[in-house]
């Protein structure tokens, strides 16, 4: 039986905005966790996790030597900083949306 772990336990992240596009970079604390995160935290996983928020495509860029993934989420800011009705119109807190996702850790 695989164990579940919240991404926040093993990684940190930062959100940025440009127009109606949000990007969240995700970095593991321990390089040993990078393969697990890279395998499970796919662009498709992120897109499917927040279908009501992310209206466009999700692109993922991997910086393997720095153990980080960059998610670029189109049409994901409810219009962008100047038009969103969200209290967080920049999507500054989107980093913690991703960090709230659960990953499966194999027993071995």
């Amino acid at each position: 039986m695989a164990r579940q772990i919240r991404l926040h336990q093993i990684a940190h992240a930062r959100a940025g905005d440009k127009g109606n596009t949000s990007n969240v970079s995700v970095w593991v604390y321990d390089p040993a966790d990078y393969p697990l995160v890279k395998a499970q935290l796919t662009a498709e996983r992120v897109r499917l996790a927040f279908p009501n928020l992310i209206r466009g495509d999700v692109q993922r860029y991997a910086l393997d030597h720095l153990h980080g993934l960059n998610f670029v989420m189109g049409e994901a800011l409810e219009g962008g900083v100047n038009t969103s009705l969200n209290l967080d119109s920049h999507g500054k807190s989107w980093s913690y949306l991703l960090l709230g996702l659960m990953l499966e850790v194999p027993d071995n």
Partner: protein
Amino acid sequence: MRIGCGAGFSSDRLQPAIDLATEGALDAIIFECVGERTLAFGHRDRLADPQRGYNPQLGARLRGVLPATHTNRTTIITNMGVANVPAAAEVARGVARDLGLNGLTIAAVTGDDVSDTITPDTVLYDFGGRTIADVGLPLVGANVYLGADAILPALDEEAHVVITGRVADPALVLAPLRHRYGWAGDDWDHLARGTVAGHLLECGMQITGGYFADPGYKDVPDLAHCGFPLAEVGPDGTTTITKLERAGGRVDLRTVKEQLLYEVHDPTAYLTPDVTADFSTVTLTDNGPDRVRVAAAQGRVRPDQLKVTVGFDGGHLGEAGISYAGPNAVARAALARAILQERVQVDTGRLRIDLIGVDALHASASAAAGRDLTELAQPDDEANAAVRDVRVRCALRSTDRDEVGAMLWEVESLLCCGPAGGGGYRGQITPCVVTHSALIDRDAVRPEVALHRS
């Protein structure tokens, strides 16, 4: 060369900038104060009063740092001119004179305002290929991102203070590096490395521990007195990011990594007016306490077209709130929301009502967005019982200010006409801008530098 950053956004703190200017032994200090939102508001301010439209903190910032930068021979480079660079240069001259600093050269870099170059037929690439005319809102201004080459002539004139409007943020740092090290305009690898240094500095404390602390996971020492960053950049562009030793905050691999990709999309192609920079080759090395060495960025030819931000008058944003606390607070707040949905009748998409403390910032994100709160709002529900207070927030956007005012009135009326124990009503109406992006040919842009002396 030692370059500091004294502001990473329009409302950034001042005292740490004075500390850095005083103690950082800096060759240059940048203040980056323009965003999509602040630029549009700059235009609005200028249209309302031809003497305004620059950063409102410009005078206070210069009064704070000019004595130190004058003593230390540090060049100030800032985009605090926002939408009115000439007026900002006048303010700088006045501050210098007030401080008894006569003979300073203040350079005003203009040419970013392309309101007269664009047309109703200009295509907005972030608006489904539709045009400016298709937006159907009054235009307030259009600014192109200038590059380091627009700033260089001011540095060649040995300006003490360089004030720009919209420039690519990293260009504020790349320009003094090009000036010092003589990097040519097609020396792509060096331009990319200077751009990385600028990109890492331009958000101020976001690389020294700001926008970072997560207690128990990512702790930051003395965040209350966090210092602004400084970069030591060598002739080959290799950079060490650090801060004043006595300042709070931290610089480590984690803060630098997070900032390296901040607002970056494809790391292999970070586009600026100066270069196409490849951040994917960057190496980061822990180089002692609060020191990270950044090297090996690569560059390719710069884009032929430049990005233009086009701002439109978007009417008004109204926000109003009322709070419920104690037993059954969630149920009473949910009732208030249901009442507001009945009383404030507007077409969908312009009105939003959140329950802050239950589900607000991330309410749209979960697949359950818009879920019925009935279950959570039951008096005996555990989650309801665990919530000590809830704020109902109602937000409405409209070109009709009266419609927004009517919404505020409805929220305030909940004090007497809503659920029990509602308190703490606050409401405000703020002007709203809408921005879109276009591209124009580099050849259509003509940067200029005007010199003023105090």
